């Protein structure tokens, strides 16, 4: 399961892509201090003023269409861009943390008889 959001911004996919991938632009909306190599296999470090720090690996990067980040601590964030009449549709999907672990637990649970 996941959380999804969809918004249309009055900007081109290229402009939105810059805001999603350039560290100084990410610092305007995502985190306070950003280091990111927005290529497949690239690493990202995101810091917030409250002391929170998260680390991610770029699983997919297809400019200016799709970027997927795997978070070291929990879950995945996938952002897709689509050019529409009014600008660019941004579709965000955040997947529940440690989903694969849950699937494994369930595979085991299928073998556990009801107590």
């Amino acid at each position, binding site marked *: 399961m996941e959380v999804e959001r969809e918004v249309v911004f*009055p*900007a081109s996919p290229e402009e939105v892509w810059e*805001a999603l991938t350039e560290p100084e632009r990410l610092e305007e*909306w995502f985190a306070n201090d950003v280091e990111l190599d927005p290529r497949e296999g690239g690493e990202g470090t995101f810091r917030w003023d409250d002391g929170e720090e998260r680390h991610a690996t770029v699983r997919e990067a297809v400019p200016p269409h799709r970027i997927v980040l795997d978070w070291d601590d929990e879950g995945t964030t996938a952002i897709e861009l689509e050019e529409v009449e009014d600008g660019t549709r941004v579709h965000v999907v*955040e997947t529940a943390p440690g989903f694969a672990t849950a699937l494994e*637990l369930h595979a085991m649970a*299928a073998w556990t008889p*009801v*107590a």
Partner: protein
Amino acid sequence: MDARRVDAVFDALGDPSRRTLVREIAARGDATATELAAGLPVTRQAVAKQLVALADAGLLRATRSGRETRYAVTPEPLGDAVGWMVEVGARWDDRLAKLGRSLRGRASR
């Protein structure tokens, strides 16, 4: 919040037939696999397997009743899962509002 438990809840509810079972049990108060299968186009065995997965995710509480197991809905894990969705959703609403301001700021420059 226990992330692993939230995952188990999401996984369990990701299947439409499991959601139907949770709704049915919630509507009846409690039910057995046999009772639930009677109203569905599936076998008792298939229902029983889904009930075990739901109970494992903590969504159902199982009680032994003679040869059958009765299941009732436990609302607490739903609270955790819904809480995760609300929290993460609110964070994205905030981020996307800021992203919109950032893009508009550029456009007017």
